[in-house]
């Protein structure tokens, strides 16, 4: 075992640190002018799309360099590298692998420059975790696909200019399916094997201003809206906007780009959260006692910290595998399960430390920290449900790693 960096890795890390020393200012993250400047600078460094090949404008960073960059950025709470989050996370890798030359030229530079936002049209009301059962339909008419159906849980659709969309296309000899009522199609789909369920799925790149698209924001329980529903009513998408072949949509959305999967960013986020909870426990006095002296609270904090440290170390084992070129599979569900439990557990812990004050949402005393803890404690569904439910993650481990039979 060896936790040291090589000389060139250390040089890269020092470069990142020097950049941060020079450019990061405490509290500046909220200033739009600073952010614009920051974005320009990290783009110039090719740290936006750092894992992408240099020939498309990415940074060509090695796995280890990606880890170092993310690690240093997260430790210093730096602003994000690039502003087109969905485009960088989901759309770019798919286009790089499956896009035509024209598509690459049209979209990749804009994603890197953050010209506009992308959103992802994957989930549907009746598909949930079972993405393969989707029903949103595209019928080929001449040089267009005509799309009808609905998407849900589309992050930031309200602000996005483009969408990467998965639809079910009819192919020769499958006219019956595309013509069947959508309810029936889903049930049929579920009964067939996974391979065939995925086979009718096609990926399209959609301009959100195309006529027939309606976006309806979804207000969540804290009152804010992060997700939206998107409705398609006979929306015509040119065939040239298809990404990959017809029926290849499933593979298209699963990126095989060599990006690091050590969950380092998530771990830093959780470390920050547990540190906040520890500070809260030290500052909160209830019933004449500092809550950080309460043995139950101490134990729960120590337990959460052990779990977060385990995530960090698990991530380093995953990274080691990746660096050795070994395939990384279902084991990444381990950290997803920990994260789900921690997101819920840290919120609960904060509320239990605070007592009644924890439920307050206002900005004045006795609400603590302007009522942020109530939001802190209600934020877990974004992670726990959005990232695939714990039940799904457990199935993945049980079936793919332990080899237990499928349901």
């Amino acid at each position: 075992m060896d936790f040291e960096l090589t000389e060139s890795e250390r040089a890269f890390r020092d470069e990142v640190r020097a950049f941060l020393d020079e450019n990061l200012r405490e509290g500046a993250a909220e200033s739009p002018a600073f952010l614009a400047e920051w974005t320009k600078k990290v783009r110039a460094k090719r740290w936006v799309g750092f894992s992408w090949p240099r020939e498309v404008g990415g940074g060509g960073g090695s796995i280890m360099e990606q880890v170092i960059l993310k690690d240093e950025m997260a430790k210093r709470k730096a602003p994000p590298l690039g502003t087109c989050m969905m485009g960088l996370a989901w759309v770019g890798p798919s286009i790089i692998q499956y896009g035509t030359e024209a598509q690459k030229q049209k979209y990749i530079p804009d994603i890197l420059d953050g010209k506009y936002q992308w959103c992802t049209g994957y989930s549907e009301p009746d598909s949930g975790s079972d993405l393969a059962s989707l029903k949103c339909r595209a019928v080929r008419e001449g040089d267009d696909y005509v799309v009808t159906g609905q998407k849900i849980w589309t992050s930031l659709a309200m602000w996005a200019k483009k969408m990467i969309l998965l639809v079910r296309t009819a192919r020769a000899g499958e006219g019956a399916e595309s013509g069947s009522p959508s309810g029936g199609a889903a049930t049929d789909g579920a009964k067939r094997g996974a391979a065939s369920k995925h086979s009718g799925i096609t990926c399209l790149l959609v301009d959100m201003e195309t006529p027939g698209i309606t976006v309806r924001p979804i207000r969540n329980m804290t009152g804010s809206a992060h997700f939206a529903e998107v409705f398609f009513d006979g929306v015509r998408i040119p065939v040239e906007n298809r990404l990959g072949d017809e029926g290849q949509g499933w593979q298209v959305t699963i990126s095989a780009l060599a990006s690091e999967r050590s969950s380092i960013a998530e771990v830093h986020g959780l470390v920050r959260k547990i540190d906040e909870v520890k500070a809260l426990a030290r500052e909160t006095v209830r019933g004449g006692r500092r809550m950080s002296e309460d043995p139950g609270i101490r134990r729960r904090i120590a337990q959460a910290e052990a779990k977060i440290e385990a995530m960090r170390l698990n991530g380093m084992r995953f990274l080691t595998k990746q660096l050795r070129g070994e395939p990384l599979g279902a084991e990444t569900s381990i950290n997803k399960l920990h994260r789900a439990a921690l997101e819920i557990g840290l919120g609960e812990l904060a509320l239990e430390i605070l007592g009644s004050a924890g439920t307050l949402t206002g900005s004045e005393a006795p609400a603590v920290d302007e009522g942020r803890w109530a939001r802190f404690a209600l934020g877990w569904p974004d992670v726990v449900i959005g990232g695939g439910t714990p039940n799904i993650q457990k199935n993945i481990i049980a079936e793919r790693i332990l080899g237990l039979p499928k349901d």
Partner: protein
Amino acid sequence: MNFGFTDDQRFLGEEVHKFLESSYPLRTVREVVDSPTFGGSDATLWNRIVSLGWPGLCLSEAHGGAGLDLETLIVVLEETGRTLLPSPLISTILAARAIERFGTSSQRQSWLPGLADGSRIGTFAMLEAGDSLSPAGVGTTGRVEGNAIVLSGEKRFVPDAVGAGLFVIPVRMVDERAGRSASAGNGDRGDSSLDEIALVFVDREAPGVSVSPLAGMDLTKPMGTVTLSDVRIPLDHLLGETRLGWSAVEWILDLGAALVTAEAVGSVEAALELTTRFAKDRIQFGHPIGHFQGVKHPLAEIYVDLESFRSLAYYAIWAIDHDAPDAKLAVSRAKAYASDAFAQAGILGVQLHGGVGYTWEYDIQLYLKRSKWFRPIFGDADYHYERAARLGGL
């Protein structure tokens, strides 16, 4: 031997259920609390409740009540819990029962009829800055000055504070040399300091009383801060016209804990029903998700917890009403168990609903928020399990 309800009680429960289902389903409750005029109590709703006689249900007939057992109230509270009814019913009953138990005969006659007929909303104001359910948590002072008691302090997290007309408040009586407590002179700050504690009535309209609302997660359970700035109350506003001491405060807290737990029975029942229905209807991987043990077993566990804290809550209410020797222990067990179980049911309910579970439009998240309100109120699981350990001889 009968650990269940009488036919009359069951009939009452069914009537309440029908009334709330038709007049105050969750859709209507949302409208009530979303209305800009809702400041902790909705007059229309309160009038309906009053016309049904709920506030006086368990008060003696001599004071305008219906004279029923406290256990009869359970069937009402389970229903208000199911629909998350935003009303100061529990607060008013708590204040009234405190007065009925500890008040002098003239105090009862002065105050109970107004609480029983709903013309006055009452509440009990315990917590202060130290957030402590203990004698040390009572920092608000009462100083006798001639024919008056002068009150100073701030009470936080007071349920239904904004709508209330009458506050029952524990205070620490101090002698006239300002700021020194009555027993401070004799150097004995031990148990005798418990005797400094008294309960007083404070009228919302009394000069020096100010009430401000607190915004919280659960809009159906409004709380507020009550500030007392040299509020002068007449001597006969001293409950029982004596320093009742900590044990009276503890009795009121126990009753409050038992009543909110009875209400929580209904809330968890409704949350379980909602989630179970969703699990039957929602198809995934070709099956209703309720077909999978990963969904069905957690739901069964919630049912087990629900029925178990239901039993504990019923018994706690009975034990308080009958001054049973194990009443305190019964309350602590019920509230502790329920605090954990409701928290669990709220989280699991939202989680099993998947994405829709935490949208504003879906009802399950309202129960999650109620569970957050419920946990600390009148003591959380840590507080009550520790108390139960002590009462159980550890």
